[in-house]
């Protein structure tokens, strides 16, 4: 028992990443608030980043930093995406006074 709790290995990182990814995925699938959906997407991206780093440590040589670079890249893109997404959400909120995705049906059909 102690072994699992205190002897931290790759498995812990991967499980944490999986849990984060699931939370994010459920958020995207279930929540109706566009703001929260955006936040959930961020969560999934970061879970992915975490697996990248974990596998890199597991299989790569210790000085190889490809996965780290890739993770930084993802963080950068995610920031940009968040900026655009939030801008859209704010714009929508200004026009309609709500950001419930179920009710944003103007473009349907």
């Amino acid at each position, binding site marked *: 028992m102690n072994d699992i709790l205190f002897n931290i*290995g*790759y*498995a812990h990182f*991967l499980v944490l990443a999986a849990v984060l990814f699931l939370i994010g*995925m459920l958020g*995207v*699938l*279930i929540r109706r608030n566009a703001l929260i959906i955006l936040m959930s997407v961020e969560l999934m991206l970061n879970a992915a980043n975490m697996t990248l780093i974990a596998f890199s440590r*597991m*299989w790569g040589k210790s000085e190889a930093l490809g996965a780290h670079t890739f993770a930084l890249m993802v963080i950068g893109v995610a920031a940009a995406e968040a900026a655009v997404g939030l801008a859209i959400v704010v714009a929508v909120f200004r026009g309609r006074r709500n950001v419930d*995705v*179920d009710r944003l*049906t103007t473009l*349907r059909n």
Partner: protein
Amino acid sequence: MDPQSLKILGLPMLAWVPLLPLIGAFLTLTLGRRISKRTAHTIACGVVLLACALSIYLVAVPLWKQFKAGAGGVGIEQTVYTWIEVGSFKAQLAFRLDTLSAVMILIVTFVGALIHIYSVGYMHKESDASYARYFGYLNLFTGSMLILVLAANLPVMFIGWEGVGLCSFLLIGFWYENESYAYAGRKAFIVNRIGDFCFLLGMFLLFWAVKDTSIANTARGSLDFANLRDPAAGPAYVAGFWGGERLSAAAGILLFIGACGKSAQLPLFVWLPDAMAGPTPVSALIHAATMVTAGVYMVCRMSFLYTASTTAMIVVATIGLLTALAAAFMAFAQTDLKKVLAYSTVSQLGFMFVAAGTGNWVAAIFHLGTHAFFKACLFLGAGSVMHGMEHGMEHLREHGKEVDATSGDITKMGGMAKHMPITRATFMISCLAIAGIFPFAGFFSKDEILAGAWGVNPPGWPFWYGEVLWAGLLLGALGTAFYMWRLYFLVFSGKERSEVAKHAHESPVSMTMPLVVLAFCATIAGFIGLPHLTGIKLPSIMHGLSSWLAPSVTPNWYMPNAAEPMVIAGHASDGLTFGLMGVALLIGVVGIGAAYVLYGHGPSKTVERLVEGPLAKPYEASKAKLWFDEIYDVIIVRPFKVVARGLFEVVDRFIIDTVAVNGSAFIVGLFGRLSRWVQNGQVQRYLAGVVVGAALVFFIADCGRKPDFTYKLVNNEYEFRAEAGAGVGGANAKLRWDLDGNGIDDIDASGNPLDAPVVKIREGEVGTYVTLKIEDPITRKPVTITKRIREEVQ
């Protein structure tokens, strides 16, 4: 003259004979109510008369030349095109006019033309549309019948065979508004199907038998008559088939069952009496003169097959005799004019089959021809009488009097002689002919059959069987003379037994003219088939029919090993010939005399006394037609209906309706509801689909990849290859091998644990079991795989 050069408008001349009536049928049936009655019957009668003229030309000029050149059996063969060619089977649309089919086309077109003309008068009360429909069907029938008789091979004959069956069905049910008439049509059709099925089986059997002989795959096609009668096909017919019996017995009997259906023989005759529901000219043409004789024609056409099996022949002769007797018996108590004639037809067809069954082909065709004349005349005469009766009925209705008879009830007739003199005269001639009175046609043809049966003794028959057939036929002839003259006396003699009969009158000339012509033929037609005599020299035309038909039929029993051919018909001495004739004539006179005594002035008191007293049981049996319909109803129709009902409930209602139709609709609906839930326009729902799909893909991809190892023997070395599946962390897994099977992880040369994914070991050193341990790098869970590599080391 080359037969192939006989063409009209590019089509072989023989094809035109059936084509002309078919064109007429097409015109009258498609134009229908748009043309007047006059146009309709002009077209219909015109094409048949043209076909008749063409037939006469074909027989008189090109066929006569062939006949004179000694090639009457080859005749004229013309092919229109190849119809079916599958594997080793080939059928051509080909026609064949030899001396046998010549007789048939002359009868069909000549009698057919007369009956077309007669119908003009008989059917004039029909509406325009059904008038045209009637003539269309009649033409269609004539065309089909001509295809049947002109066919050069069995498949084409089968087209005609089915065609006439269809027309028979259509015409019996011509007044289909009447439920029972429509039922009679269906009955005829269904009973015929049973026969046709066996006909087909016989055809298949013949094809199977000859497909490997030298006659197969010639230019003519597989089932061409000219091929089938080729001596090279003979061995196939006598080959053992079932229980050592010859193949020709099976094929012959199967084909004969087909003939039983078409020609109304026991046990398939039940449809013919009901077929009298059709218009009377139809009864005359189809159900007396032509179609029902198709079976006889077919047996004669296949004479080469039947002569190869005396078993088949005895079956044909026996069925013929039984039918002749049974039908004659059933005719005694009938009270419907046409029903009597129908049973008479069945009986006469039995005579023809006895002739065919005794190898007396010429007599069969001879009687077929004379019967066509006198029976057509009788039917048309009956039609004329009924027409007159209907006139009487109309007369009574007009004067507001009660109608006290139906048109066909002979118990209500009598005394028609003075109302319809022409009909009476022709009817009398035909009755004399069918009773076998000299010198009318029936005398000679019936006598030929009787004389042929006497003394016939093929190998395999009891030696007395010919005499039994003769005696049976004689009894049948006695019955024929009696019931026909009973009919005659009841209709024409004595006093009228109803008001209707008193007001009957003679039919128009379009109806009496054919009667006169047919009666004339029934008088003289016998003189072409006189018996051969040694003492008296007759002109050759007097027995022209037998020399005319001889090339087309087989005169000998097929005896493959006999030194000399065994001739079927032996020559009787003049004394015997005249003696048999005398007996037959005497029998005819006795029958007529008995009828006169009992019915000469209407039904006598004696009849009543006999019917109520000593003859009550037979009379009832005759009236009930020996209960054939009832027996069939119990043993065939009802069980069949029960089975059909069960199949309907189980197969149709449950399997097809419930499971197949509603079930598939339910499944489609189910998927519809499902996809409606999915396809709701929300991105999130689609995304859920993507997630589920991706999860499925990963799951399935992972399923096939369990940790494992494989091995193979290369140059006395085992090579082991670890296949660490994705489930255990793939390439980074920690491996431990135990190759020698001692239970301890092996080490390599330098003392390190053996952990390479591919390891080798010499053949001799490998253990019985090899174990691979894989430790998952993430969960650190070990997986152990052990395989038995070889048998215990000795």
